[in-house]
C-alpha cells in the first residue's frame, strides 16, 4: 500500500463502452490498476476518471499518450500527488456484541473523524474519508472487532 502511486486523470465522453476502452488499454500495456473512480465532471456529458497505478515515470507518460489517442477521450494527464487534494471513501459494517464494545467502536470512529451512518441492533455501519494511509490505519484499528464488510472507493482527486 505504501508503493509510489501515480495519478492519471482522464476526461472522456460519457458514452457506452468508454470505460471499457480505457480499462482495456491499461491491461494491454500491462498495468495493474490500483484504484479507479468514475463520475460526472463539472461539464455535462463529460466523465472524469481518477485512476491510480504503479509504474515508472516513463511508463506512465507513455500510458497517458496512449489514452489520449482514444477517440472518446478528451484529455488525459498524469499529476503528481502533491498537486492534488484527494480522498477515498470507505464504508464498513461491524458486528457489535454489547454496549461496551459499541463504545469502543464509536471512539475509533471519532478518532478517525468518521460517522456512524447506520445503527442496527447488532451492527454499526461506518463512513470514513481520507487519504489511503488514513483508511489503512482505520482498518488496522478496526481489525480487533468483527468486521463484516469493508469497501473503499479508491482515490478521487481535484487539482489544488
Amino acid at each position, binding site marked *: 500500500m505504501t508503493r509510489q502511486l501515480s495519478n492519471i486523470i482522464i476526461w472522456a465522453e460519457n458514452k*457506452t*463502452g468508454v470505460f*471499457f*476502452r480505457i480499462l*482495456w488499454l491499461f491491461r*494491454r500495456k500491462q498495468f495493474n490498476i490500483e484504484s479507479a473512480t468514475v463520475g460526472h465532471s463539472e461539464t455535462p456529458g463529460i466523465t472524469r476518471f481518477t485512476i491510480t497505478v504503479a509504474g515508472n515515470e*516513463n511508463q506512465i*507518460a*507513455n500510458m497517458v*499518450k*496512449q489514452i*489520449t*489517442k*482514444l*477517440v472518446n477521450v478528451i484529455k488525459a494527464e498524469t499529476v503528481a500527488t502533491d498537486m492534488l487534494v484527494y480522498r477515498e471513501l470507505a464504508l464498513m459494517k461491524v458486528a457489535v456484541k454489547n454496549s461496551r464494545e459499541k463504545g469502543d467502536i464509536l471512539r475509533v470512529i471519532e478518532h478517525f473523524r468518521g460517522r456512524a451512518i447506520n445503527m442496527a441492533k447488532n451492527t454499526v455501519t461506518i463512513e470514513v474519508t481520507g487519504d489511503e494511509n488514513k483508511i489503512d490505519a482505520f482498518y488496522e484499528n478496526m481489525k480487533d472487532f468483527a468486521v463484516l464488510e469493508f469497501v473503499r472507493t479508491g482515490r478521487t482527486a481535484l487539482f489544488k
Partner: protein
Amino acid sequence: MKTRLKQGQKVQGAEIICECLLRAGVTVIFGYPGGANIPIYDALYKYPELRHILVRHEQGAAHAAEGYAWATGRPGVCFATSGPGATNLITGLADAMLDSIPMVCITGQVPSPLLGSDAFQEADILGMTLPVTKHNYLVTRADDIADVFAEAFYLAVAGRPGPVLIDITKDAQVDYAEFRYKENRDRLKKRLKLEATEEEIGQISSLLNEALRPLIVAGHGILLSGDGKTLLSVAEKQDIPVTLTQLGLSAIPHDHRLFMGMPGMHGNVAANRAPLETDVLLAVGMRFHDRVTSKVSAYAPQAKIIHIDIDPSEIGKNVMPHLGVVGDAKAVLGQLLPKLKSRKNPGWLKKFEAWKSEEQKKVFTRELLSPKLKSAQVIDEIARQTGFQATIVADVGQNQMYAARYYQYRKYNTHFTSGGLGTMGFALPAGMGAKLGDPGREVWIVIGDGGIQMTLQELATIVQEKTEVKIALLNNNYLGMVRQWQELFYKGNYSEVKLKNPNFQKLCEGFGISSLKAENLKETKEAINIARKSQGPFLIEFTVEAEENVFPMIPAGAGIGEMVVSLEELSKK
C-alpha cells in the same frame, strides 16, 4: 461527384450507408453478403457507382481493402455480415492496425432488440475488434449512420491512419431516417499536430548541421505523408545516407547514390552497420520496431536520436530519443529543409561503399550467379523486365525478404507487404485490391507455396473480376522461413515445415488462370516475358532451391552488431 440523396430526404438506413460511401469517395468495396447485411446489399443495387468485389472469404476482403488503400491512399472498404462474416475480418484488421493502413469495415449486426441475447450469428464484434481497430462503432439507429460514417472516414486517414469498424444492427439498416450529411470534423481535427514548432526545427537543424556521421532511417510514415521527395532533398542537401525500413521501401529511388538499403533482421549490411557508428540519427515516420533495432540496448549506441512521428505515443515508446518531434513527415521535413546548411560528407559515405561491396561479394553475387534457380534471381529478373517500375505485393516468409532485397524499387510507393503482423496469405488478395484500386499499375504478387494456400480461394475472385495481376509463386516446398530457423538454430530438426503441395498448374487450370512453371533461369526469363505479354491474370510457379537461406541475418535476441552476413560466418560463431 454524383450524389443520389438530397439533404433531409427520408430513406432506409441501408441507402444512407451507400450514399455516405459515395460521398466519401469510395469506388470499390470488397465484401460478402449474409443475413445481417442483406439490406445493405439491396440498397447497393441502386448504386452502380459503387463497384462491389465479391471475395471468397472475408479475410480476403480485408487484405484486398488494405492493398487498395496502399495503392490509392484512400481507405479500403469492406462489407461483412454478422458473426462469422465479421470474425473473418479480424486478421485483416489486426494487419491494418499494425501497418497503419486506412480502412473502413462495415459489418451487419443482429437487430438491436436481440443484442446480447446470443441470437443467431451474433458475435460481440465491437469487443473483439477493439484491440485491432483505431476506433469502432455500434450503430443501432438509422439516424446516426451519416454522422458515424463521416467521422469514420475521417478517422481512418487522420494523423496515423488505421482501420475503423462500423457495426450496424439490421434494424438500423431497415428503418427510415432523414439523410443529413456533414463532413466537418473539427472536434477531432483540433487534436492533430502536423507541424514542428520553430524551436523544434531549430533544434533538429542544429543537431544535423553539426553532425559528423548523420544517418536517416525512414519508414512507412514517408509513404503515408504522400511524398518521398522532401526526404530526398533533405538527404541530398547534407549528403546524409538514407535507409528505409521494410514498410518504407520505395519512398526514394533505390538506385539513388544515398540509398543504403533496409535495416533489420534480414536487412542490408550497410543499413545495419551504420546505426552503430552514426552520431546523429534522424528517424522519420518509423517506430523503432524490434525487427529494425534488434536488441534495443545495443542499437545506435553513440547516436543522438531525433524522432519525428505523427503519433505522439510512438515518441519514447521503444527508444527514448534525444529529441522527439510530433508531426507529419513531409511537413516537418519541408520546414527543416531551408534551415539546413549544404554539406558534403565523402569520408562517411565511403564507409557505406565498403559495406555495400562486402554484401555484394558475400551475398548478392553468389545468389545472382547461382547455377540452381534462386529466389533472388527470380525477383531480379522480374525487376529487370518490369524496368524497376512494377508494384510488388509481397507475402510473408523468405519470399518477402527476397522481394524486399532484390527488387530495386525506383518508383515511389511500389512495395506493399504485411510488415507488422506478418500475415501469410496477405499478398494474393492485397495484390488484387491494389490492382483494382489503381489499374494503371503493373502488379506482381510475390508469394510462397505456404502463403498462397492460406488465401488461395481469392484466385476465383481474381478470375471473376478479370483482375490483371501477375503472381510469382516461389515454390520451395517448405515453410521456408521457419525451415531456415530450424536449420540454423534448432540443430536442423525440420519439424512440420515440409509441404506436400498440390499440383499448382492443375489448380490454376481449375480456377481458369493461365500459368507456367519455371525451373531454371532461362525458363524464368521466358515465363516472365510471356506473363507480361499475356492479358489477364497469370501465375508462374518458380521451382526455387528448396533449402536456400536468406542472408544477412541478425539472430533473435542479438544486437545489430552481431549480424552474420553469410552462412560461413554463422558456422564460425
